[in-house]
């Protein structure tokens, strides 16, 4: 990432590109991000090679990595709109994701007009795309309801309010009274502690919607045979296809937020982050800007939540603990708050190294040393140390990588806050205008002529 930081340090941000008319910072960032993602894929393929993975496992590994990169990058982008652009310290991300997927589930689960069996419930049976739109709107509206009163709070109070609200959402999902209810003849509900089965597979629905299912099955069978994926190749290609779909959504997120950031609207958000009172004094109704920005971010978080959980087949309230919120924060801080490109990069790096990496590493080690029998408790792991035998401790450590990876995340977060709070791409200038702000003489040679003939009244300065 040295080239990225070099760009960040340049004091004339536009100078580099203005010499080369065809190369806007946009393209450069796209190249950087593509390179990063391809690099991460290569690393995983290499790891898979070391593990002796076959094609099937390699493809599955890449597919899963793509999904995680897509999700964390999308979430980091949405959070960047809140924190990086507007200065709204939202640590209730998971709550908005939960609202999104639960609303989608209730709308799009198969309709049940007779009372469903214990432990299950139905939905309204709407097409999935309608459910997704409904979920996004629900998350946005919920965000608006939170933001309306909370906007004037200090950042740290706002944080506490949002995390409190995300927990209230989780408690509500757990509630047995609304586990199963009948609305307008339909049996539905939030499923309580046992959660909801998602009887829609987003990849299948996507293919069916375009009438591509048969072609896809045929294609995956043929390609699967050629690549030596083995029997039943569809799940593998489903993962890859879903990863691809998420990348398309990610590009959509990125373009939307890049445009938002570059627009006069985004300019006001940045100004609010810098100094809200000064922005007000210029006649901007800052609250309206903040509410809209917050709602948009919440809608995107809802959408990311839908995309993340829809593919998992079932949701339970336990999945919506605040932990995931902090993952997204770590991703954003790695990438650099305030930069959309940084958000994507941070999401990708987080997914590859901190979220999936340790487990992958664990697999590699355990695969390499088959005989490594991990002790079941820390005590059994530590006691041989006195006899100068560190192997049990190492084995225990490897075996409990799932726990240690969160320790690692904590340490990374502390390290970043100490040494690089601006992240990989932070403090980088992302232009606050939909047009390029190059030097005036280059952009409009005729401008001064227009001014002298009185064509423009700029504060009445031209009349002398």
């Amino acid at each position, binding site marked *: 990432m040295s080239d990225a930081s070099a760009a960040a340090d340049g004091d004339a941000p536009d100078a580099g590109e203005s010499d080369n008319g065809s190369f806007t910072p946009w393209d450069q960032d796209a190249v950087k991000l593509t390179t990063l993602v391809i690099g991460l894929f290569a690393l995983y393929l290499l790891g898979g090679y070391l593990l002796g993975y076959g094609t099937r496992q390699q493809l599955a590994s890449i597919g899963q990595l793509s999904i995680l990169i897509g999700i964390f990058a999308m979430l980091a982008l949405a959070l960047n709109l809140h924190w990086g652009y507007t200065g709204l310290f939202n640590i209730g991300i998971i709550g908005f994701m939960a609202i999104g997927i639960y609303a989608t589930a209730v709308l799009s689960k198969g309709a049940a007009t007779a009372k469903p069996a214990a432990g299950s419930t139905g939905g309204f049976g709407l097409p999935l795309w309608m459910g997704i739109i409904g979920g996004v709107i629900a998350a946005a509206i919920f965000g608006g309801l939170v933001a309306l009163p909370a906007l004037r709070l200090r950042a740290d109070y706002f944080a506490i309010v949002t995390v409190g609200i995300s927990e209230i959402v989780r408690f509500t999902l757990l509630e047995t009274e609304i586990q199963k209810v009948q609305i307008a003849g339909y049996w539905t509900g939030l499923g309580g502690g046992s959660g909801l089965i998602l009887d829609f597979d987003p990849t299948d629905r996507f293919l069916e919607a375009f009438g591509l299912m048969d072609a896809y099955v045929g294609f995956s069978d043929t390609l699967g045979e050629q690549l030596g994926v083995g029997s039943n190749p569809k799940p593998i290609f489903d993962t890859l296809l879903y990863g691809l779909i998420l990348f398309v959504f990610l590009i959509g997120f990125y373009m939307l937020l890049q445009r938002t950031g570059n627009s*006069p*609207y985004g300019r006001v958000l940045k100004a609010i982050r*810098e100094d809200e*009172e000064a922005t007000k004094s210029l*006649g901007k109704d800052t609250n309206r800007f903040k509410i809209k920005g917050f709602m948009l971010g919440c809608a995107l978080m809802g959408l990311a939540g839908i995309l993340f959980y829809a593919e998992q087949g079932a949701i339970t309230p336990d999945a919506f603990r605040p932990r995931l919120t902090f993952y997204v924060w770590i991703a954003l801080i790695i990438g650099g708050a305030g930069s959309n490109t940084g958000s994507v990069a941070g999401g990708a790096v987080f997914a590859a190294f901190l979220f999936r990496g340790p487990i992958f590493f664990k697999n590699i080690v355990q695969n390499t040393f088959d005989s490594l029998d991990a002790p079941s408790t820390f005590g059994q792991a530590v006691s041989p140390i006195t006899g100068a035998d560190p192997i049990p401790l190492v084995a225990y450590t490897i075996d409990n990588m799932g726990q240690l990876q969160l320790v690692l995340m904590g340490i990374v977060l502390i390290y970043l806050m100490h040494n690089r709070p601006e992240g990989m791409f932070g403090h980088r200038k992302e232009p606050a205008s939909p047009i390029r702000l190059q030097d005036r003489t280059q952009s409009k040679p005729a*401008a001064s002529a227009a001014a002298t003939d009185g064509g423009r009244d700029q504060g*009445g300065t031209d*009349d002398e």
Partner: protein
Amino acid sequence: MAAGTREAPTMSDTEAGTPDAATEHDAIGDADADEAESRVTGTVPLRVEGLRKEFGGIVAVDGTSFEIEEGTMTGLIGPNGAGKSTTFNCITGVHEPTAGTVQFQGEDITGLAPNQVANRGLVRTFQIARELEEMTVLENMLLAPKGQRGEALWRSVLPFVRGSVIEQETEILEDCWEMLEFFEIDHLAHEYAGNLSGGQRKLLELARALLTEPTMLLLDEPFAGVNPSLEERLLEHIHELREQGYTFLIVEHDMDLIMQNCEHIIVMHQGQVLTEGTPAEVKQNKQVVEAYLGGEVGE
């Protein structure tokens, strides 16, 4: 829109440099056009009556009343703690007054939000210049113009309507360049505002305020922390703008500056207006001399 108000019939035709190219601004100002028309323009744009502000029992402003005439430059002076800044904040909507009214262009603006006050053409600058440090000078300027279509989120994002945003942005950018040139800080356009000197910031702040197309400007200690040569330039600009028809109310610590440049002076003391008048009248007022512990006034 602001150009429209400056064209208002009640305004003195003898004002030099009254701009006449209002139509050029339709693109920017159309959203506020109705508002502009409903305005009652008078010779006294700002009228403060019985203004009072308490903070938890402490009276900061205690029944202040004054009027500002169109096209004048008025100085608001007084010792520390006299209530100047609080008065300013009450006028501009930062604080809600405990009692009293503020009228601007014949309209009661008491208790309006700061952005609402600014949108009516009464725009302030801050004692400590409040630049948006991590934005460039040009971005600071681009922020200011009113009625920007692209400030509506959907217009900025949707593919087809976005063209009109870009079109307007190009016009606004041109306006910004001209304003920067007028203030002779166009060479700093791509500099981050946080890197400017104190004086340059004051210039930027004034330039930015002007882009909101105000009719009256409230300057809070515009010369604090400005080096003498920039101070001279800033003064020239202010005089030039005044001749174009802008009304100024200036809070300033430097007595000499106020005495030399303002035609009308309001002296505040302990939350009240002690006296007001021309510089000469104020100088001779014994109370003023006492309020300043003698000697500091004038020479």
